[in-house]
Protein backbone atom coordinates (compact mmCIF):
# COMPACT_ATOMS: atom_id res chain seq x y z
CA UNK A 1 0.00 0.00 0.00
CA UNK A 2 1.37 3.38 -0.94
CA UNK A 3 1.11 6.20 1.48
CA UNK A 4 2.61 9.59 0.97
CA UNK A 5 4.52 10.49 4.08
CA UNK A 6 6.19 13.79 4.76
CA UNK A 7 9.54 12.08 4.44
CA UNK A 8 10.34 9.47 1.86
CA UNK A 9 12.09 6.37 3.15
CA UNK A 10 15.65 7.41 2.15
CA UNK A 11 15.16 10.86 3.65
CA UNK A 12 13.74 9.54 6.91
CA UNK A 13 16.71 7.18 7.14
CA UNK A 14 19.00 10.15 6.63
CA UNK A 15 17.21 11.96 9.49
CA UNK A 16 17.65 8.95 11.75
CA UNK A 17 21.20 8.01 10.82
CA UNK A 18 23.15 10.35 13.15
CA UNK A 19 21.21 9.02 16.12
CA UNK A 20 21.58 5.49 14.87
CA UNK A 21 25.36 5.76 14.54
CA UNK A 22 25.81 7.14 18.06
CA UNK A 23 23.43 4.64 19.61
CA UNK A 24 25.06 1.75 17.77
CA UNK A 25 28.49 2.92 18.86
CA UNK A 26 27.83 3.77 22.48
CA UNK A 27 24.94 1.52 23.49
CA UNK A 28 24.64 -1.47 21.23
CA UNK A 29 28.28 -2.17 20.51
CA UNK A 30 29.33 -1.92 24.20
CA UNK A 31 26.56 -4.30 25.14
CA UNK A 32 27.81 -6.99 22.80
CA UNK A 33 31.50 -6.24 23.22
CA UNK A 34 31.45 -6.94 26.95
CA UNK A 35 30.22 -10.46 26.26
CA UNK A 36 33.21 -11.24 24.09
CA UNK A 37 35.56 -9.33 26.39
CA UNK A 38 34.34 -11.29 29.38
CA UNK A 39 35.80 -14.48 27.91
CA UNK A 40 39.31 -12.96 27.78
CA UNK A 41 41.90 -11.78 30.23
CA UNK A 42 42.19 -8.37 28.56
CA UNK A 43 43.71 -5.61 30.67
CA UNK A 44 45.17 -2.14 30.21
CA UNK A 45 48.62 -3.03 31.46
CA UNK A 46 50.76 -6.12 31.80
CA UNK A 47 51.27 -9.06 29.48
CA UNK A 48 47.58 -9.41 28.60
CA UNK A 49 47.30 -5.82 27.37
CA UNK A 50 48.83 -6.50 23.96
CA UNK A 51 47.65 -10.04 23.39
CA UNK A 52 44.55 -10.85 25.36
CA UNK A 53 44.03 -14.60 25.75
CA UNK A 54 40.80 -16.46 25.49
CA UNK A 55 40.10 -17.80 28.96
CA UNK A 56 36.69 -19.33 28.48
CA UNK A 57 34.48 -19.10 31.53
CA UNK A 58 37.32 -18.44 33.96
CA UNK A 59 36.15 -14.91 34.78
CA UNK A 60 32.65 -16.14 35.56
CA UNK A 61 33.99 -19.07 37.58
CA UNK A 62 36.00 -16.67 39.66
CA UNK A 63 33.04 -14.35 40.11
CA UNK A 64 30.76 -17.16 41.19
CA UNK A 65 33.24 -19.14 43.25
CA UNK A 66 30.83 -20.08 45.99
CA UNK A 67 33.58 -20.63 48.56
CA UNK A 68 34.67 -17.02 48.54
CA UNK A 69 32.02 -14.98 46.77
CA UNK A 70 30.29 -13.88 49.96
CA UNK A 71 33.54 -12.55 51.42
CA UNK A 72 33.60 -8.78 51.83
CA UNK A 73 34.86 -7.20 48.63
CA UNK A 74 33.69 -10.05 46.42
CA UNK A 75 30.88 -10.16 43.90
CA UNK A 76 28.27 -12.03 45.94
CA UNK A 77 28.77 -9.76 48.89
CA UNK A 78 28.37 -6.64 46.75
CA UNK A 79 25.13 -8.03 45.32
CA UNK A 80 23.80 -8.57 48.83
CA UNK A 81 24.87 -5.08 49.90
CA UNK A 82 23.20 -3.63 46.81
CA UNK A 83 19.99 -5.51 47.56
CA UNK A 84 19.89 -4.04 51.09
CA UNK A 85 20.63 -0.61 49.68
CA UNK A 86 17.87 -0.84 47.04
CA UNK A 87 15.36 -2.13 49.57
CA UNK A 88 16.18 0.49 52.18
CA UNK A 89 16.77 3.59 50.11
CA UNK A 90 14.60 3.07 47.05
CA UNK A 91 11.65 0.83 47.85
CA UNK A 92 11.15 1.95 51.44
CA UNK A 93 12.89 5.32 51.54
CA UNK A 94 12.18 7.06 48.23
CA UNK A 95 8.88 5.44 47.34
CA UNK A 96 7.53 5.60 50.91
CA UNK A 97 8.57 9.17 51.54
CA UNK A 98 7.55 10.24 48.02
CA UNK A 99 4.06 8.79 48.50
CA UNK A 100 3.76 10.35 51.97
CA UNK A 101 4.64 13.79 50.67
CA UNK A 102 2.28 13.45 47.71
CA UNK A 103 -0.55 12.49 50.08
CA UNK A 104 0.29 15.10 52.70
CA UNK A 105 0.03 17.86 50.11
CA UNK A 106 -2.84 16.33 48.15
CA UNK A 107 -5.01 19.20 46.86
CA UNK A 108 -2.91 21.78 48.65
CA UNK A 109 -1.24 24.61 46.84
CA UNK A 110 0.28 26.74 49.57
CA UNK A 111 3.69 28.10 50.38
CA UNK A 112 4.73 25.10 52.47
CA UNK A 113 4.02 22.75 49.59
CA UNK A 114 6.08 24.81 47.18
CA UNK A 115 8.89 24.96 49.71
CA UNK A 116 9.02 21.20 50.28
CA UNK A 117 8.73 20.42 46.57
CA UNK A 118 11.39 22.91 45.54
CA UNK A 119 13.82 21.70 48.21
CA UNK A 120 13.26 18.06 47.28
CA UNK A 121 13.82 18.87 43.60
CA UNK A 122 17.00 20.77 44.42
CA UNK A 123 18.26 17.72 46.32
CA UNK A 124 17.43 15.61 43.27
CA UNK A 125 18.93 17.79 40.57
CA UNK A 126 22.09 19.15 42.21
CA UNK A 127 25.19 17.50 40.71
CA UNK A 128 26.54 14.35 42.37
CA UNK A 129 29.85 15.79 43.48
CA UNK A 130 28.22 18.69 45.30
CA UNK A 131 25.71 16.46 47.02
CA UNK A 132 28.48 14.10 48.02
CA UNK A 133 30.35 16.96 49.61
CA UNK A 134 27.24 18.34 51.32
CA UNK A 135 26.58 15.03 53.01
CA UNK A 136 30.20 14.56 53.84
CA UNK A 137 30.01 17.84 55.76
CA UNK A 138 26.58 17.01 57.18
CA UNK A 139 27.80 13.69 58.62
CA UNK A 140 31.21 14.88 59.79
CA UNK A 141 32.04 13.22 63.15
CA UNK A 142 33.40 16.37 64.79
CA UNK A 143 31.62 19.44 63.54
CA UNK A 144 28.96 18.01 61.20
CA UNK A 145 25.50 19.51 61.26
CA UNK A 146 23.82 16.23 62.16
CA UNK A 147 25.92 15.81 65.27
CA UNK A 148 25.38 19.47 66.16
CA UNK A 149 21.63 18.98 65.96
CA UNK A 150 21.78 15.80 68.04
CA UNK A 151 23.88 17.70 70.53
CA UNK A 152 21.04 20.18 71.02
CA UNK A 153 18.98 17.28 72.32
CA UNK A 154 21.81 16.01 74.46
CA UNK A 155 22.57 13.03 72.22
CA UNK A 156 26.18 11.90 71.70
CA UNK A 157 28.05 12.61 68.47
CA UNK A 158 28.73 9.68 66.16
CA UNK A 159 31.13 8.95 63.36
CA UNK A 160 28.28 8.04 61.06
CA UNK A 161 30.25 6.97 57.98
CA UNK A 162 32.49 4.72 60.07
CA UNK A 163 29.98 3.24 62.47
CA UNK A 164 26.79 3.19 60.41
CA UNK A 165 28.01 3.30 56.81
CA UNK A 166 25.06 1.39 55.33
CA UNK A 167 22.47 3.42 57.22
CA UNK A 168 24.25 6.60 56.11
CA UNK A 169 24.18 5.82 52.41
CA UNK A 170 20.56 4.66 52.66
CA UNK A 171 19.56 7.95 54.29
CA UNK A 172 21.67 9.80 51.74
CA UNK A 173 20.07 8.11 48.75
CA UNK A 174 16.58 8.50 50.15
CA UNK A 175 17.16 12.21 50.55
CA UNK A 176 18.73 12.41 47.09
CA UNK A 177 16.09 10.61 45.05
CA UNK A 178 12.72 11.08 46.76
CA UNK A 179 11.74 13.90 44.40
CA UNK A 180 11.14 11.57 41.47
CA UNK A 181 8.63 9.35 43.28
CA UNK A 182 7.07 12.40 44.88
CA UNK A 183 6.51 14.09 41.51
CA UNK A 184 5.31 10.91 39.84
CA UNK A 185 2.77 10.16 42.59
CA UNK A 186 1.68 13.78 42.73
CA UNK A 187 0.89 13.89 39.05
CA UNK A 188 -0.91 10.55 39.25
CA UNK A 189 -2.96 11.74 42.25
CA UNK A 190 -3.90 14.97 40.54
CA UNK A 191 -5.29 12.98 37.63
CA UNK A 192 -7.82 11.26 39.91
CA UNK A 193 -11.15 13.03 39.86
CA UNK A 194 -11.98 14.45 43.31
CA UNK A 195 -15.51 13.16 42.97
CA UNK A 196 -14.30 9.65 43.86
CA UNK A 197 -13.06 10.82 47.24
CA UNK A 198 -16.04 13.10 47.79
CA UNK A 199 -18.36 10.17 47.16
CA UNK A 200 -16.57 8.04 49.71
CA UNK A 201 -16.59 10.92 52.20
CA UNK A 202 -20.33 11.19 51.83
CA UNK A 203 -20.60 7.47 52.54
CA UNK A 204 -18.48 8.05 55.63
CA UNK A 205 -15.18 6.35 54.85
CA UNK A 206 -12.22 7.18 57.07
CA UNK A 207 -9.05 8.68 55.62
CA UNK A 208 -7.29 5.34 55.79
CA UNK A 209 -10.22 3.63 54.06
CA UNK A 210 -10.22 6.30 51.36
CA UNK A 211 -6.55 5.68 50.72
CA UNK A 212 -6.82 1.90 50.79
CA UNK A 213 -10.06 1.50 48.84
CA UNK A 214 -10.01 4.41 46.41
CA UNK A 215 -6.54 5.84 45.83
CA UNK A 216 -4.37 2.75 46.10
CA UNK A 217 -6.23 0.69 43.47
CA UNK A 218 -6.16 3.62 41.07
CA UNK A 219 -2.45 4.15 41.60
CA UNK A 220 -1.22 0.62 41.36
CA UNK A 221 0.32 0.82 37.88
CA UNK A 222 1.95 4.12 38.81
CA UNK A 223 3.38 2.49 41.90
CA UNK A 224 4.66 -0.46 39.87
CA UNK A 225 6.26 1.91 37.36
CA UNK A 226 7.86 3.90 40.14
CA UNK A 227 9.23 0.91 42.02
CA UNK A 228 10.80 -0.67 38.95
CA UNK A 229 12.38 2.56 37.76
CA UNK A 230 13.88 3.57 41.09
CA UNK A 231 15.10 0.01 41.61
CA UNK A 232 16.84 0.17 38.25
CA UNK A 233 18.40 3.54 38.98
CA UNK A 234 19.40 2.74 42.53
CA UNK A 235 20.87 -0.56 41.43
CA UNK A 236 23.21 1.35 39.09
CA UNK A 237 23.93 4.43 41.17
CA UNK A 238 27.54 5.22 41.90
CA UNK A 239 27.10 8.35 43.99
CA UNK A 240 27.55 6.70 47.45
CA UNK A 241 31.15 6.18 46.40
CA UNK A 242 31.65 9.90 46.95
CA UNK A 243 30.68 9.46 50.61
CA UNK A 244 32.28 6.19 51.62
CA UNK A 245 34.44 5.05 48.70
CA UNK A 246 32.80 1.65 49.19
CA UNK A 247 34.21 1.33 52.69
CA UNK A 248 34.95 0.99 55.42
CA UNK A 249 36.21 -2.52 54.71
CA UNK A 250 33.98 -2.91 51.60
CA UNK A 251 30.88 -2.56 53.81
CA UNK A 252 29.22 -0.23 51.31
CA UNK A 253 30.74 -1.60 48.14
CA UNK A 254 27.70 -1.68 45.89
CA UNK A 255 27.87 -3.63 42.64
CA UNK A 256 28.42 -0.38 40.75
CA UNK A 257 31.41 0.44 42.94
CA UNK A 258 32.71 -3.13 42.70
CA UNK A 259 32.53 -2.92 38.89
CA UNK A 260 34.35 0.40 39.02
CA UNK A 261 37.13 -1.00 41.18
CA UNK A 262 37.70 -4.13 39.11
CA UNK A 263 37.21 -2.68 35.64
CA UNK A 264 38.15 0.97 35.86
CA UNK A 265 40.63 1.22 38.73
CA UNK A 266 42.45 -2.09 38.36
CA UNK A 267 41.75 -2.10 34.61
CA UNK A 268 41.07 -5.84 34.59
CA UNK A 269 38.76 -5.53 31.60
CA UNK A 270 38.10 -9.24 31.28
CA UNK A 271 36.95 -9.69 34.85
CA UNK A 272 35.25 -6.30 34.83
CA UNK A 273 33.30 -7.29 31.74
CA UNK A 274 32.09 -10.45 33.41
CA UNK A 275 30.76 -8.31 36.26
CA UNK A 276 29.26 -5.88 33.74
CA UNK A 277 27.52 -8.75 31.96
CA UNK A 278 25.95 -9.83 35.22
CA UNK A 279 24.87 -6.27 36.03
CA UNK A 280 23.43 -5.70 32.58
CA UNK A 281 21.49 -8.95 32.68
CA UNK A 282 19.88 -7.82 35.92
CA UNK A 283 19.19 -4.44 34.29
CA UNK A 284 17.67 -6.22 31.33
CA UNK A 285 15.22 -8.08 33.56
CA UNK A 286 14.22 -4.89 35.42
CA UNK A 287 13.88 -2.83 32.23
CA UNK A 288 11.85 -5.53 30.49
CA UNK A 289 9.45 -5.69 33.40
CA UNK A 290 9.16 -1.92 33.26
CA UNK A 291 8.41 -1.86 29.54
CA UNK A 292 5.79 -4.57 29.91
CA UNK A 293 4.11 -2.68 32.74
CA UNK A 294 4.22 0.65 30.93
CA UNK A 295 2.90 -0.81 27.69
CA UNK A 296 0.10 -2.45 29.62
CA UNK A 297 -0.67 0.92 31.14
CA UNK A 298 -0.70 2.56 27.73
CA UNK A 299 -3.17 0.11 26.28
CA UNK A 300 -5.44 0.32 29.32
Amino acid sequence: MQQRTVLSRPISLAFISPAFILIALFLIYPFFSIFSMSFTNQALTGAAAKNPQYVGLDNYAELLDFDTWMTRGEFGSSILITAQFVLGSALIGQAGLGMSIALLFYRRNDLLRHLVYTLAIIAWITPDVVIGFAWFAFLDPNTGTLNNILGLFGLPAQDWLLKFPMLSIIAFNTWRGTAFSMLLFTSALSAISPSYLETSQVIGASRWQQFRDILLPMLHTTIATDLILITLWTFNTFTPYLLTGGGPGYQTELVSIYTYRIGLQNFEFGRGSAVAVAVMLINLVLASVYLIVSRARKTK
Partner: protein
Amino acid sequence: MKSGWLARVLSNILGVALALFFLVPMLWFVFAPFNEHATLSVRIPENFTLNNFQVVFSNETAVRSLLQNSVIISGGVMVLTALIATLAAYGFSRGSLPGREIITYILILFSSVVTGTASLVPIFVLIYNLGMFNTYQGVILATVGGMLPTSIFIMRDFIDGLPRSYEEAAMVSGASPLQIFRDIVFPTLRPGVLVVAVMAFVSGWGAFLTPLILIRNASMRPASIAFYQFYSDEGSPNIPLVSTYAVLYTLPALLLYLFINARYGFRFFGGIKQ
Protein backbone atom coordinates in the same frame (compact mmCIF):
# COMPACT_ATOMS: atom_id res chain seq x y z
CA MET B 1 -14.20 19.69 57.50
CA LYS B 2 -14.57 17.13 60.24
CA SER B 3 -10.88 16.85 60.97
CA GLY B 4 -10.59 20.37 62.30
CA TRP B 5 -7.60 22.43 63.32
CA LEU B 6 -5.61 19.70 65.06
CA ALA B 7 -5.08 17.76 61.83
CA ARG B 8 -4.15 20.99 60.13
CA VAL B 9 -1.54 21.85 62.70
CA LEU B 10 -0.13 18.31 62.66
CA SER B 11 0.14 18.23 58.90
CA ASN B 12 1.85 21.61 58.90
CA ILE B 13 4.35 20.44 61.50
CA LEU B 14 5.03 17.39 59.35
CA GLY B 15 5.45 19.62 56.31
CA VAL B 16 7.93 21.87 58.11
CA ALA B 17 9.87 18.80 59.26
CA LEU B 18 10.07 17.58 55.67
CA ALA B 19 11.24 20.97 54.47
CA LEU B 20 13.99 20.90 57.13
CA PHE B 21 14.93 17.34 56.17
CA PHE B 22 15.63 18.44 52.59
CA LEU B 23 17.10 21.78 53.55
CA VAL B 24 19.52 21.07 56.39
CA PRO B 25 22.15 19.01 54.52
CA MET B 26 22.34 21.79 51.92
CA LEU B 27 22.23 24.68 54.36
CA TRP B 28 25.98 24.55 54.73
CA PHE B 29 26.37 25.84 51.15
CA VAL B 30 24.41 28.95 51.98
CA PHE B 31 26.89 30.11 54.60
CA ALA B 32 30.30 28.51 54.09
CA PRO B 33 31.18 30.34 50.84
CA PHE B 34 30.85 33.69 52.59
CA ASN B 35 33.03 32.72 55.53
CA GLU B 36 36.81 32.79 55.20
CA HIS B 37 37.19 30.38 58.09
CA ALA B 38 34.32 28.06 57.26
CA THR B 39 34.34 24.60 58.79
CA LEU B 40 32.10 21.62 58.14
CA SER B 41 29.49 22.94 60.52
CA VAL B 42 26.76 25.36 59.62
CA ARG B 43 27.63 28.81 60.99
CA ILE B 44 26.33 32.16 60.02
CA PRO B 45 29.52 34.01 59.03
CA GLU B 46 30.57 36.69 61.51
CA ASN B 47 32.57 38.61 58.94
CA PHE B 48 30.65 38.33 55.71
CA THR B 49 33.19 38.18 52.88
CA LEU B 50 33.44 37.56 49.15
CA ASN B 51 37.08 36.77 49.52
CA ASN B 52 36.57 33.06 48.82
CA PHE B 53 35.13 33.89 45.42
CA GLN B 54 38.18 36.00 44.67
CA VAL B 55 40.53 33.16 45.53
CA VAL B 56 38.55 30.66 43.50
CA PHE B 57 38.54 32.93 40.47
CA SER B 58 42.30 33.34 40.73
CA ASN B 59 42.76 29.58 40.36
CA GLU B 60 43.22 29.32 36.62
CA THR B 61 42.67 25.58 36.31
CA ALA B 62 39.46 25.68 38.31
CA VAL B 63 38.13 28.61 36.31
CA ARG B 64 39.00 26.95 33.02
CA SER B 65 37.25 23.78 34.16
CA LEU B 66 34.10 25.71 34.99
CA LEU B 67 33.91 28.29 32.24
CA GLN B 68 35.56 26.38 29.43
CA ASN B 69 35.66 22.62 29.89
CA SER B 70 32.25 22.21 31.53
CA VAL B 71 30.66 24.66 29.11
CA ILE B 72 32.14 22.90 26.07
CA ILE B 73 31.17 19.45 27.29
CA SER B 74 27.64 20.17 28.45
CA GLY B 75 27.04 22.64 25.63
CA GLY B 76 28.16 20.02 23.14
CA VAL B 77 25.97 17.40 24.78
CA MET B 78 23.02 19.81 24.73
CA VAL B 79 23.31 20.88 21.09
CA LEU B 80 24.01 17.42 19.74
CA THR B 81 21.34 15.68 21.80
CA ALA B 82 18.63 18.22 20.95
CA LEU B 83 19.44 18.30 17.25
CA ILE B 84 20.06 14.61 16.68
CA ALA B 85 17.12 13.51 18.84
CA THR B 86 14.75 15.90 17.09
CA LEU B 87 15.89 14.80 13.65
CA ALA B 88 15.58 11.14 14.58
CA ALA B 89 12.23 11.52 16.31
CA TYR B 90 10.94 13.35 13.26
CA GLY B 91 12.29 10.68 10.95
CA PHE B 92 10.62 8.01 13.08
CA SER B 93 7.35 9.87 13.38
CA ARG B 94 6.91 11.02 9.78
CA GLY B 95 8.85 8.46 7.81
CA SER B 96 7.48 5.18 6.58
CA LEU B 97 9.78 2.87 8.50
CA PRO B 98 8.33 -0.45 9.53
CA GLY B 99 8.47 -1.48 13.19
CA ARG B 100 9.32 1.92 14.57
CA GLU B 101 7.39 1.29 17.79
CA ILE B 102 9.44 -1.80 18.52
CA ILE B 103 12.68 -0.07 17.57
CA THR B 104 12.00 2.79 19.98
CA TYR B 105 11.28 0.37 22.80
CA ILE B 106 14.39 -1.67 22.08
CA LEU B 107 16.49 1.50 22.11
CA ILE B 108 15.00 2.55 25.44
CA LEU B 109 15.75 -0.92 26.73
CA PHE B 110 19.37 -0.60 25.65
CA SER B 111 19.77 2.81 27.21
CA SER B 112 18.58 1.49 30.56
CA VAL B 113 20.64 -1.68 30.38
CA VAL B 114 23.90 -0.14 29.20
CA THR B 115 24.26 2.36 32.02
CA GLY B 116 26.38 3.24 35.02
CA THR B 117 29.80 1.86 35.75
CA ALA B 118 29.02 -1.40 33.96
CA SER B 119 28.71 0.46 30.65
CA LEU B 120 31.86 2.45 31.26
CA VAL B 121 34.06 -0.62 31.09
CA PRO B 122 33.36 -1.28 27.38
CA ILE B 123 32.97 2.42 26.60
CA PHE B 124 36.38 3.14 28.04
CA VAL B 125 37.91 0.45 25.83
CA LEU B 126 35.99 1.73 22.81
CA ILE B 127 36.97 5.37 23.32
CA TYR B 128 40.54 4.32 23.91
CA ASN B 129 40.59 2.33 20.66
CA LEU B 130 38.93 5.15 18.72
CA GLY B 131 41.72 7.47 19.84
CA MET B 132 39.27 9.72 21.67
CA PHE B 133 40.72 9.20 25.10
CA ASN B 134 41.52 12.56 26.71
CA THR B 135 39.33 14.51 24.29
CA TYR B 136 36.16 16.55 24.72
CA GLN B 137 34.44 14.77 21.86
CA GLY B 138 34.97 11.38 23.53
CA VAL B 139 33.03 12.47 26.63
CA ILE B 140 30.44 14.35 24.58
CA LEU B 141 29.68 11.53 22.16
CA ALA B 142 29.56 8.84 24.86
CA THR B 143 27.14 10.96 26.91
CA VAL B 144 24.97 11.82 23.91
CA GLY B 145 24.80 8.17 22.87
CA GLY B 146 23.39 7.24 26.27
CA MET B 147 20.86 10.07 26.31
CA LEU B 148 19.50 9.70 22.80
CA PRO B 149 16.86 6.97 23.23
CA THR B 150 15.02 8.77 26.02
CA SER B 151 15.38 12.11 24.25
CA ILE B 152 13.97 10.64 21.05
CA PHE B 153 11.09 9.22 23.05
CA ILE B 154 10.34 12.61 24.59
CA MET B 155 10.57 14.40 21.24
CA ARG B 156 8.22 11.87 19.67
CA ASP B 157 5.64 12.84 22.25
CA PHE B 158 5.91 16.46 21.18
CA ILE B 159 5.91 15.61 17.45
CA ASP B 160 2.81 13.46 17.83
CA GLY B 161 1.08 16.56 19.23
CA LEU B 162 1.95 18.54 16.12
CA PRO B 163 -0.93 18.81 13.62
CA ARG B 164 0.04 17.08 10.40
CA SER B 165 -1.66 19.81 8.40
CA TYR B 166 1.24 22.19 9.15
CA GLU B 167 3.59 19.98 7.23
CA GLU B 168 1.05 19.19 4.56
CA ALA B 169 0.37 22.86 4.01
CA ALA B 170 4.12 23.40 3.64
CA MET B 171 4.39 20.47 1.22
CA VAL B 172 1.60 21.89 -0.91
CA SER B 173 3.22 25.32 -0.70
CA GLY B 174 6.27 23.80 -2.38
CA ALA B 175 8.67 23.22 0.52
CA SER B 176 11.27 20.43 0.47
CA PRO B 177 11.61 18.01 3.44
CA LEU B 178 14.60 19.93 4.77
CA GLN B 179 12.78 23.26 4.41
CA ILE B 180 9.76 21.80 6.19
CA PHE B 181 11.97 20.66 9.05
CA ARG B 182 13.88 23.93 9.30
CA ASP B 183 11.02 26.41 8.75
CA ILE B 184 8.02 24.64 10.25
CA VAL B 185 8.79 21.61 12.41
CA PHE B 186 11.81 22.73 14.42
CA PRO B 187 10.35 26.16 15.35
CA THR B 188 6.95 24.76 16.34
CA LEU B 189 8.62 22.10 18.46
CA ARG B 190 10.50 24.70 20.47
CA PRO B 191 9.10 23.68 23.88
CA GLY B 192 10.07 20.05 23.30
CA VAL B 193 13.49 20.97 22.02
CA LEU B 194 13.96 23.18 25.06
CA VAL B 195 12.97 20.42 27.49
CA VAL B 196 15.33 17.92 25.86
CA ALA B 197 18.13 20.49 25.59
CA VAL B 198 17.90 21.46 29.26
CA MET B 199 17.78 17.83 30.36
CA ALA B 200 20.87 17.13 28.28
CA PHE B 201 22.67 20.22 29.53
CA VAL B 202 21.92 19.47 33.16
CA SER B 203 23.05 15.88 32.86
CA GLY B 204 26.20 16.82 30.94
CA TRP B 205 26.97 19.51 33.51
CA GLY B 206 26.53 17.16 36.44
CA ALA B 207 28.30 14.17 34.86
CA PHE B 208 31.12 13.02 37.06
CA LEU B 209 32.02 9.44 36.34
CA THR B 210 32.24 9.58 32.53
CA PRO B 211 34.66 12.53 32.35
CA LEU B 212 36.60 11.14 35.33
CA ILE B 213 37.30 8.00 33.37
CA LEU B 214 37.60 9.38 29.85
CA ILE B 215 39.69 12.50 30.58
CA ARG B 216 42.93 12.17 32.47
CA ASN B 217 44.38 15.51 31.46
CA ALA B 218 43.78 17.90 34.39
CA SER B 219 43.55 21.00 32.19
CA MET B 220 40.65 19.48 30.22
CA ARG B 221 38.57 18.16 33.08
CA PRO B 222 35.16 19.69 33.76
CA ALA B 223 34.18 21.40 37.00
CA SER B 224 32.68 18.23 38.46
CA ILE B 225 36.20 16.85 38.84
CA ALA B 226 38.06 20.11 39.31
CA PHE B 227 37.11 20.16 43.01
CA TYR B 228 40.38 18.42 43.67
CA GLN B 229 42.10 21.71 42.84
CA PHE B 230 41.07 22.80 46.31
CA TYR B 231 42.40 19.77 48.15
CA SER B 232 45.75 19.87 49.87
CA ASP B 233 48.50 17.47 48.86
CA GLU B 234 47.50 15.20 51.74
CA GLY B 235 43.99 15.00 50.32
CA SER B 236 42.07 17.17 52.77
CA PRO B 237 39.77 19.79 51.31
CA ASN B 238 40.11 23.52 51.74
CA ILE B 239 36.59 23.87 53.01
CA PRO B 240 35.81 27.54 52.25
CA LEU B 241 37.07 27.20 48.69
CA VAL B 242 35.42 23.88 47.95
CA SER B 243 32.08 25.20 49.14
CA THR B 244 32.46 28.35 47.07
CA TYR B 245 33.35 26.42 43.98
CA ALA B 246 30.45 24.04 44.57
CA VAL B 247 28.00 26.92 44.65
CA LEU B 248 29.41 28.47 41.48
CA TYR B 249 29.25 25.09 39.78
CA THR B 250 25.75 24.16 40.91
CA LEU B 251 23.83 27.36 40.30
CA PRO B 252 23.70 27.45 36.45
CA ALA B 253 22.36 23.92 36.07
CA LEU B 254 20.01 24.23 39.01
CA LEU B 255 18.48 27.52 37.90
CA LEU B 256 18.06 26.26 34.36
CA TYR B 257 16.29 23.15 35.59
CA LEU B 258 14.03 25.04 37.99
CA PHE B 259 13.13 27.45 35.20
CA ILE B 260 12.13 24.64 32.83
CA ASN B 261 10.29 22.85 35.62
CA ALA B 262 8.31 25.97 36.50
CA ARG B 263 7.55 26.72 32.87
CA TYR B 264 6.67 23.28 31.53
CA GLY B 265 5.97 21.35 34.72
CA PHE B 266 7.09 17.89 35.62
CA ARG B 267 6.69 15.63 32.65
CA PHE B 268 7.20 11.96 32.97
CA PHE B 269 7.52 10.48 29.54
CA GLY B 270 7.96 6.83 30.33
CA GLY B 271 11.59 7.29 29.51
CA ILE B 272 13.64 5.06 31.66
CA LYS B 273 16.52 7.36 32.46
CA GLN B 274 16.57 10.31 34.76
